[in-house]
């Protein structure tokens, strides 16, 4: 018997989450070509039929395993490069040009699709249920009109981490100071049903330069909700030297394997009135870069940390266990979902104690930087 605490790394789930997953901007798939997307431990093929409707199938042909992503779109169907079997978006083989009949069993894995806010989403369920359209993320009013800048969309492959690491951020108040260089001045969580929300107000740290959430002149009001296991809408009000900008940040991912995922983020900025196109573009670009940097700060942590099933918390920490209990619903058969996974849970973190300490630390850093600066001058 020892009183040393051990890290329980547990076992990552062998299944992928049930729910809607975003594959990218819908427009990018409408060029008449098949597109490969790694996801759910396989490769998917995405294409647009003759009506421009987006279709998604498992990328490997059920005949002899040909790679459909290297095939061709013929009419409404995707044709395999190996023997030209034609697969429809409903998962059925429609035609085999060299055969009189199509085998009755010629059905492959299809994914139901939906387009929301200009993005393609697909429904994944290991139990094979029909897509639940009530669980889709909401439409964002005015986004995709000339009131907002078009989506600036970015993709980052993450290897060696389960995507739950990304979800953990929702409840992690303290990492905003250490990883993102901002003081969270107010922090709340609400988990309920298939949504998990984080409210945060923060102020950039003056001892860290601009970029990410840092910089003395930047203040942030952030409301971020996960709709299901993988798609978050983050409504941000960024106040930079008194100039307030509304930013919408989409943070979503697709698991690619048990220990890897593809992180995607998209940014759209409400165009401030009375500003010319050029300045608007400049602002949009600046925020895209700064929130992109924010993700990279997280990635550096994930790439080096280990999985932990038994985090040890202090009293200032956020509700990681409750958040994970909520997240578990997407990895459980529907019949086995426990009420506590979806019951409403509210949390408010006291940031006063942490902030007293953090402000003192920052003051020390600033004093040291000033002293170093003087040395350099003499």
């Amino acid at each position, binding site marked *: 018997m020892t009183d040393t605490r*051990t890290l*329980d*790394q*547990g*076992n*990552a*789930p*062998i*299944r992928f989450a049930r729910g809607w997953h975003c594959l990218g901007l819908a427009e990018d798939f409408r060029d008449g070509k098949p597109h490969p997307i790694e996801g759910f431990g396989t490769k998917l093929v995405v294409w647009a039929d003759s009506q421009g409707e987006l279709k998604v199938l498992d990328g490997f042909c059920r005949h002899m395993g040909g790679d459909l992503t290297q095939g061709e779109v013929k009419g409404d169907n995707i044709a395999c490069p190996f023997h030209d079997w034609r697969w429809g978006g409903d998962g059925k083989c429609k035609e085999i040009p060299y055969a009189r009949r199509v085998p009755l069993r010629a059905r492959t894995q299809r994914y139901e699709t939906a387009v929301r806010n200009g993005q393609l989403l697909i429904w994944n369920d*290991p139990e094979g249920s029909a897509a639940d359209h*009530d669980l*889709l*993320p*909401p*439409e964002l009013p005015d986004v995709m009109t000339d009131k907002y800048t078009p989506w600036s969309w970015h993709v980052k492959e993450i290897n060696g981490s389960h995507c*739950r690491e990304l979800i953990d951020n929702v409840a992690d108040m303290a990492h905003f100071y250490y990883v993102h260089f901002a003081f969270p001045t107010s922090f709340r969580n*609400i988990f*309920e049903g298939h*949504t998990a*929300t984080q*409210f945060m107000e923060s102020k950039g740290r003056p001892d860290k330069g601009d970029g990410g959430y840092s910089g003395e002149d930047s203040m942030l009001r952030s*409301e971020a*909700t996960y709709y299901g296991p993988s798609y978050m809408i983050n*409504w941000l009000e960024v106040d930079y030297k008194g100039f307030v900008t509304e930013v919408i940040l989409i943070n979503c991912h697709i698991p690619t394997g048990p220990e890897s995922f593809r992180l995607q983020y998209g940014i759209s900025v409400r165009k401030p009135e009375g500003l010319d196109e050029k300045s608007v573009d400049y602002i949009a670009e600046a925020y895209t870069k700064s929130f992109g940097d924010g993700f990279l700060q997280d990635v550096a942590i994930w790439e080096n940390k280990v999985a932990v*099933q*038994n985090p*040890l*918390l*202090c*009293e*200032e*920490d956020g*509700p*990681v*266990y*409750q958040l*994970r*209990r909520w997240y*578990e619903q997407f*990895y*459980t*058969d529907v019949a086995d979902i426990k*009420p*506590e996974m979806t*019951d*409403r*849970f*509210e*949390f*408010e*973190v*006291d*940031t*006063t*104690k942490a902030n007293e300490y953090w402000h003192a630390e920052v003051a020390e850093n600033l004093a040291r930087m000033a002293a170093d600066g003087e040395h350099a001058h003499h």
Partner: protein
Amino acid sequence: MASFVPSSAETVEDQRLYTEERLVEVACLDCLASVRVKKNSEHQTSVQWSTEGRSHCQEFQRRGTGPGRRDLHKPCPRMMASIDDAVRAGDVPIGAYDGY
């Protein structure tokens, strides 16, 4: 199907400790709803609703459940006031045991 399987019994006990321990029942002063509350400090509050308590809350009923309603995330002000009262009355102990 199991997922995120902890490899030790202590982990299961930790899960219970952090999610279930020290919760105190607080009833709403205005309706039939009740919740379970924990306070690690003066300004920190955890509120655990149940399906039943949630269905009794007048405020949540009034808001409806339309998809994409952002105000669904706001707490019920009556319940918050009831919790404040319970805290003032000393019914909800303030402070954590070793972080939970």
